[in-house]
């Protein structure tokens, strides 16, 4: 590696870092919030584009930054549309599913979503619950995480109480 390459890297790293911080800051917090399956992929793709800019000599700085901005723009458009149109929203985002409720696994839904009982129990353990008796419901969210809901002392939770 020559000195020139070294200096190029420093300038490119500083330059792209600054641009990326600025672009992300302008596009808002929502760009990197992971609310559905797709958001996480886009976040990793953004990181991969940045890494490529830094490491690949063949990739031109402008080209990389352009790809980065395009991705942010596409995320912006899709989230902009989904808060304004319910049709777009249901197209982009799947509904959460109730997979455990009232001491019963919904086996049909679990098969459909390809989730095993072991995974449900693991999610419950991860939230620090030692007993299934404390659990009112487990929900598979649209970003692919499992939410564990504790039983309420005040009232018996009905299915409608989970905003599904």
């Amino acid at each position, binding site marked *: 590696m020559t000195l020139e390459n070294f200096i190029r890297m420093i300038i490119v790293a500083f330059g792209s870092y600054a641009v990326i911080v600025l672009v992300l800051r302008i596009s808002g917090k929502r760009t990197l919030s992971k609310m559905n*399956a*797709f958001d*996480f*992929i*886009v*976040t*990793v*793709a*953004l*990181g*991969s*584009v940045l*890494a*490529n*800019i830094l490491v*690949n000599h*063949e*990739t*031109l700085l*402008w*080209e*990389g930054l*352009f*790809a980065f901005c*395009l*991705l942010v723009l*596409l995320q912006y458009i*899709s989230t902009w549309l989904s808060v304004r149109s319910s049709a777009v929203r249901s*197209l*982009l985002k*799947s509904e959460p*599913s109730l997979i455990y409720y009232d001491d019963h696994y919904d086996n049909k839904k*679990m*098969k459909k*979503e*390809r*989730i*095993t009982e*072991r*995974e449900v*129990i*693991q999610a*419950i*353990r*991860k939230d*620090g*619950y*030692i*007993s*299934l*008796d404390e659990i009112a419901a487990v929900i*598979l*969210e*649209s*970003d*692919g*995480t*499992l939410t564990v809901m504790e039983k309420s002392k005040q009232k018996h939770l009905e299915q409608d109480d989970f905003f599904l």
Partner: protein
Amino acid sequence: MNTGQFGRITVVSFFCYLVILFVLRLSGKRTLLKMNAFDFIITVSLGTVFGNILINQDEVLWEGLYIFCLLLIFQFLSSYLSSRSALFSRILKAHPSLLFYDGTYYEDKMKKERIPKSEVLQAIREQGIGKVEEVAAVILETDGTISVLPKKNNELRDLNTLVDLDENQENQKNDIE
């Protein structure tokens, strides 16, 4: 760089974005659920493939999308089979390991899984628990996280989430009880 390249990146980005959105939506929420170490790697790979398609001129668009879909199909098949066959589920996924149970550290298991006592204690602290006596069990989950299960009213009972552990560990736990 000329306008041709800019145009190419724009078209490719839009197209990929739509295709990837569509195939992910099709494959369901489960595809990105990170329940074991492997799931996380796949998710990161998917993102990297996407990023690479955008930026690498040499990479052919179809090739990238093909790899993306292949990864999704493998993930789909492995989760499809494990949700339908207990045998597959056991082959694809390790059992969680009990590291600590009611005052006893399982040193053998900790050595095997390369977890020092300090990390078990750290996991307990991170749950905001100041006394080891308040902990019923500590478990190393299949995705590499450590679960801490506090005792209920200082008693060991209703431990029905402690299932599906390594076989000999089930016995050890029963011995203590």
